[in-house]
């Protein structure tokens, strides 16, 4: 991490704080272990190494965008492994499906941050000392600096230096006296900004790490009329941080009263969603009062240190299943999974293990707005809202296998063709309110109504706020470091011929010379008026390029 501005003029004040690796010391040959360590440390904290590590981070991130990642889409990773039976396992061995959690990726960024710390921390110390110490004394020959001027005056040397001191202090330079000279420096904020930027990146890394260690995230599906409490049993998926234990879960609860989706109803964009809104009620604890909240996209709910987001939605058709004996074997709304996002054709299963004499199961497709696709003589959904909710059912009877002890997905029927047999003529298209009498007196199923479900993400990340603070500090730091440059000015007054005083002014700015120097010289000439024929115009030697 070198100061990103350099003296373009190529003066001695080149700003490389990072040692050049070659020039950084003696060759490692014949060194003791300590020498090797020092050599290695110098290599690691050199700018060249830092640059290479930066590019490795960039390069290493690329597969994370090309290959599916477990952190984002585990189902696509499984699919990829299925399709690439030879290549897949090799990629997996190289952690290429978890790039951002991979050991090799961690190695790169940890080395990078060690390298960064190894540069920034000594530099911070150095800058701290520079800020508290005196501005460096005037170099012998001020005329050789990138910016310089000189003139003669009738005023005495002491008077000239006093004027220079006053002028520079007035412009908020830090001023120190030398022999027959004044040294001044300002613009420390640039280096402070630079250091703050890099330190903030370190803090950001720690905040992100802390967030994933001490936080948790989980997913919940909630149907209209349903409720959940913040405990493990309600989560469909729960990922705690390594340092988080589930008994730390905040005791809030929430119920979903109503979900509403609005869509464009006509024109080319018919069916495009316009707005989602979930009317929910929540309690912070078991005894807290219930509060309403309008949960929407971009409008999460903050409760108990966690944030609750609406991620997706879908349909949960309601059914009543009666068995062969006329008893209700199942009644409820069953979340279906959309198989396409445009018009929400969804599929799901209904299981009625209480049905007698035989258990019943139904495989179903749901269309919110069913229309006949004339070309293929098929039913399709023409609109995402439930304008004409229709299901097609396929009936199975037999043993659902729920007592076998093997956990089952609620979205799939197991054992078809083995323990469960399809019912003859058991397929039927039902509109809302219609009932299907299952052939053979096995019972009936009624399509009662259509509810909607939402999927929620519950996320507790204690690193969020520190990460944000670090990010803001980084921005402020980089802006300061790009806008403020360190400037040094020296004024020397020496007795000349005929009782006059020779005034020399020299300026050194990181980066390019500034117009500020010319202003200073002009102001100084106003305070101590120049005289005599040897009067060089201000900035005559000025090597200003712009």
């Amino acid at each position, binding site marked *: 991490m070198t100061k990103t501005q350099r003296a373009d003029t190529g003066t001695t004040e080149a700003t490389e704080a990072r040692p050049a690796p070659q020039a950084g010391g003696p060759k490692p040959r014949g060194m003791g272990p300590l020498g090797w360590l020092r050599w290695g440390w110098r290599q690691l904290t050199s700018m060249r190494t830092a640059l290479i590590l930066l590019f490795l981070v960039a390069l290493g991130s690329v597969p994370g965008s090309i290959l599916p990642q477990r952190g984002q889409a585990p189902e696509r990773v499984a699919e990829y492994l299925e399709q690439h039976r030879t290549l897949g396992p090799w990629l997996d061995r190289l952690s290429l499906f978890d790039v951002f959690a991979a050991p090799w990726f961690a190695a790169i960024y940890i080395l990078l941050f060690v390298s960064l710390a190894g540069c920034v921390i000594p530099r911070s110390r150095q800058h701290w000392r520079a800020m508290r110490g005196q501005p460096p004394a005037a170099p012998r020959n001020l005329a050789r600096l990138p910016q310089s001027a000189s003139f003669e005056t009738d005023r005495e040397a002491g008077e000239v230096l006093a004027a220079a001191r006053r002028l520079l202090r007035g412009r908020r330079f830090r001023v120190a006296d030398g022999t027959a000279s004044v040294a001044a420096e300002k613009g420390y904020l640039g280096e402070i900004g630079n250091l703050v930027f890099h330190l903030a990146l370190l803090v950001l890394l720690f905040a992100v790490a802390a967030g994933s260690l001490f936080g948790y995230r989980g997913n919940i599906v909630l149907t209209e009329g349903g409720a959940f409490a913040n405990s493990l049993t309600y989560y469909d998926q729960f990922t705690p941080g390594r340092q988080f234990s589930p008994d730390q879960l905040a005791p809030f609860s929430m119920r979903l009263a109503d979900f509403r989706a609005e869509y464009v109803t006509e024109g080319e964009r018919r069916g*495009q969603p316009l707005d989602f809104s979930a009317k929910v009620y929540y309690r912070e604890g078991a005894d807290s009062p219930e509060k309403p909240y309008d949960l929407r996209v971009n409008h999460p709910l903050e409760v108990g240190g966690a944030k609750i*987001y609406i991620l997706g939605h879908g349909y949960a058709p309601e059914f009543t299943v009666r068995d062969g004996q006329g008893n209700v074997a199942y009644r409820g709304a069953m979340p279906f999974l959309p198989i396409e996002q445009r018009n929400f054709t969804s599929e799901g299963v209904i299981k009625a293990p209480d049905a007698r004499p035989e258990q019943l199961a139904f495989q179903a497709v749901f269309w919110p707005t069913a229309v006949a696709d004339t070309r293929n003589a098929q039913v399709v959904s023409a609109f995402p809202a439930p304008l004409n909710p229709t299901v097609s059912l396929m009936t199975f009877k037999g043993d659902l296998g729920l007592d076998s002890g093997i956990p089952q997905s609620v979205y799939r029927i197991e054992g078809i063709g083995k323990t469960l047999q399809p019912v003859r003529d058991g397929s039927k298209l039902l509109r809302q309110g219609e009932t299907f009498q299952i052939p053979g007196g096995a019972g009936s199923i009624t399509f009662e109504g259509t509810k909607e479900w939402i999927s929620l993400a519950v996320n507790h990340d204690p690193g969020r706020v520190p990460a944000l603070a670090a990010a803001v500090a980084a921005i402020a730091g980089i802006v300061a470091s790009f806008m403020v440059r360190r400037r040094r000015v020296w004024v020397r007054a020496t007795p000349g011929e005929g009782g006059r005083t020779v005034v020399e002014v020299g300026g050194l700015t990181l980066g390019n010379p500034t117009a500020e120097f010319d202003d200073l010289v002009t102001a100084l000439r106003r305070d101590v008026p120049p005289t005599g024929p040897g009067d060089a115009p201000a900035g005559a030697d000025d090597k200003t390029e712009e």
Partner: protein
Amino acid sequence: MADGDLANLSDQLMLGTVLLYVVAMVGYALDLGFGLRRRQTEQTEQAEQAAPAKVLVGSAGAEAVDAGTDAGDAADADADEGGRRRETDWGRFAVLINVLGWGAHLGMLVTRGWAAERWPWGNMYEFLSAIAFAAVTAYLVVLVRHKARFLGAFVMVAAVIALGIATIWLYTPVGPLVPALKSYWIAIHVSAAIVATGAFTVGGTATLLYLLQSRRQERGTEGGGALALLPGADTLDRLAYKITMFAFPIWTFAIIAGAIWADEAWGRYWGWDPKEVWSFVTWVIYAGYLHARATAGWRGRKAAIISLVAFAALLFNFFGVNYMFSGLHSYAG
């Protein structure tokens, strides 16, 4: 006015913008071309006046180009050059047309936003048009502050290509936003990304010219055509660096604003979505450029190449990520 009329007006303004930019591009090109010829004539004249014998032995060509390198710094000041006499001032004409085109471009974005009743960067068509606008604006700022008219022709080419792609392949009729984009963060995050991308585009143009110029200078002063009229490699390098220094903090801000928005919308501030990955990659490579430019052994052409790689990553983030990968940002496609 009905929304439909406004939308039509926006489309027509787009067409007008492209036409004006094409004319401005030709104007800038003529400015460069005639400038070259003019300068050569002047130099020949000068050479004739100073040492007629030399012209006879044919060394004028070498001298002209020699002076042409020196002319690098003078090229930006050519507005008040005395030697143009009766000739048309193509440079001024180009700037005038360019500013008119910029006005039409602004009108196109405003009417588009008006018709849709929202910020006009909700899809790829609008986004790319806005980036082109930011690039042209950045160029106009650089023109005023650094007299960098030589960039005009190249920025116009980039703008015309961008607007062409937007109109031909990405055109989307005016419409409402998907719910995920309905947030005031669109004004902050997307605007910052647009401004940074526009500035990076101008910076990338200057970097490219720097690379060509520095190679030309290294090879000696043989030929080089229009390059002889551009400022010296150092000036180009410094200009590119300044523009990148302006754009980089804005890009950083765009990423952070995006993270804050992601935290509001998706439940996490960083999730390595492909768009996030590539904006990170872009950021890292530009950071590499800024460091490399201050490091011995890297500054100069090596650093410039890094900057171009970063710009390529930026372009890939815009086109590649939206059309090749499926991610949370893909609604923009």
